[in-house]
């Protein structure tokens, strides 16, 4: 059963446009939701599969590039372009999964890092297709069913609807029989094999699911920014998502969402007031790792339980 806290937080996020006095905060909320979908997708691997990837930006970036390239260079319509971007990126994740899952642990991390860096290099050097350093631009948001997605509020609500679907579907996945197996494979792969589970295939399915949701986030990223450059494929992009997952709490559903709120707020809001906001970001993460190494969501959960026990003890 979905707990009340994630539902309440998601509802608050959905209310943000109505509460916000300016488009700026609507856009910040949109960025949070896109980052949250991306972090949730990575969480399938890191939190539930025990596979730490440093190349997850590959799916965000390739999907964003494909969406914009198909619309602006190939003349494909918006909906087929978005669908093709998700399908092709998911297909790429199958290939990358087969390669990366030849190893686990550090080996897996290094292969995902290498694959991500190859794509980043391609985006920089394959200028005729990717626009090189200049990226791809000239991309406008469409008006499906008369809804003008150029409006920050309309785009926010669209993003919120996709986020809600993504959150619920990922929640169902990790609570499903398959999800139980995925967590079992994370904790005791040898035992799971001895129980008849195809450990490699379980990991591959999780890898592809993570790639699929990363691609969905990539489509939203493309439509939000209306521009894509090699920056989206950079190691910092993958590392940022990993920080969101770890800071919020890997292996929890709400953790990556909280992590996305922290990172995007620091990047977009705090940076307006604090020049050295990156330093602040670093300090925040050091504090989280020092005081709540399991992440914010499990950390606060632990504090809440401790307080409840103390209160019960006093009574």
């Amino acid at each position, binding site marked *: *059963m979905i707990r009340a806290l994630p539902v309440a937080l998601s509802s608050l996020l959905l209310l943000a446009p109505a509460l916000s006095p300016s488009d700026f905060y609507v856009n910040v909320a949109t960025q949070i939701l896109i980052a949250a979908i991306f972090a949730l997708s990575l969480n399938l691997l890191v939190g539930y599969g025990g596979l730490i990837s440093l190349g997850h930006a590959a799916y965000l970036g390739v999907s964003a590039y494909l969406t914009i390239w198909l619309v602006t260079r190939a003349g494909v319509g918006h909906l087929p372009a978005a669908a093709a971007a998700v399908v092709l990126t998911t297909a790429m994740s199958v290939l990358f999964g087969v390669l990366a899952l030849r190893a686990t642990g550090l080996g897996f991390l290094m292969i995902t890092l290498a694959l991500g860096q190859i794509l980043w290099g391609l985006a920089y050097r394959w200028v005729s297709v990717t626009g090189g350093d200049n990226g791809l631009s000239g991309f406008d948001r469409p008006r499906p069913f008369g809804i003008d997605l150029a409006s920050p509020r309309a785009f926010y609500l669209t993003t919120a609807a996709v986020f809600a679907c993504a959150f619920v579907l990922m929640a*169902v*996945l990790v*609570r*499903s*029989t*398959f*999800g*139980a*197996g995925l967590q*079992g494979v994370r*904790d*005791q792969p*040898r*035992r*799971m*094999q*001895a*129980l*008849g*589970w*195809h*450990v490699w295939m379980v990991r591959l*399915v999780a890898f592809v*699911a993570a790639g699929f949701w990363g691609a969905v986030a990539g489509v939203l990223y493309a439509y939000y920014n209306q521009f894509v450059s090699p920056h989206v494929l950079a190691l910092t992009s993958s590392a940022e998502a990993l920080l969101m997952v770890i800071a919020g709490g890997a292996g929890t559903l709400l953790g990556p969402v909280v992590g996305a709120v922290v990172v995007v707020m620091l990047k977009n809001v705090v940076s307006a007031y604090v020049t050295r906001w990156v330093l602040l970001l670093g300090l925040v993460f050091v504090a989280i790792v020092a005081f709540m190494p399991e992440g914010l969501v499990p950390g606060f959960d632990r504090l809440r339980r401790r307080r409840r026990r103390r209160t019960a003890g006093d009574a």
Partner: protein
Amino acid sequence: MSAEALRLEAVSKSFGGLPAVRGVSLSIADGERRLLLGPNGAGKTTLFNLVTGDLPPDTGSIRLFGREISRMAAHRRVHLGLARTYQVITLFPRKTLAQNLELALLGLSPLRWNPVALPSRRPELRERALAVLERVGLRAAADRRLADTSYGEQRRVEIAMALSQEPRVLLLDEPFAGLSQEERREIQRQLAAIPRQVTVVMIEHDLDVALSFAERITVLHQGQIIVEGSRAEVVADARVQEVYLGA
């Protein structure tokens, strides 16, 4: 049904040039209770790992009910009716006893690939888990986290997980290790209740309980079989007394 449950022919395994199992040939009849004996380092657990597919053999053939399995993936062997327990308990401490059992039951069910089937909405899964826990006397503790149970209870859960898969061949790796006398008696009762159609191969150092269980005994020393036979034959064998009993 084949009269032979498990057959190993000239199976060898080395680690970095150090032979752990050397040309082992073994035949275990369907429904037999076989004990693998041997001092530490004799290659008993390695032999189990070769049979289950945790390790690939360097050479040799392994047949399960006549089917060659030496190159078959480990998880596929489980689907052919092979189950095992481990010397060191490898369970899921954060999950409840029932959830541990559910993972074992799902391992052989097509349901394990279903990304939308919630275990909580599958009462039949829980009922089957509870039924197995009942067999090992742990039904009352079904909703307790494994981490909150005793070592002896965890051993029973290990055996229950293997039994829940209704195996045709069950490999037990030191099921009595680290247990108190009372816990040993409990495990003995459970092993005695295993249906006759299940072939059981056990590694055990506790000769009192192991000898009362086994019908035939295979003694390994330095990766090789030195003697195989009935309890009386093995106990009387001079080589066994020399290498194992220290006589």
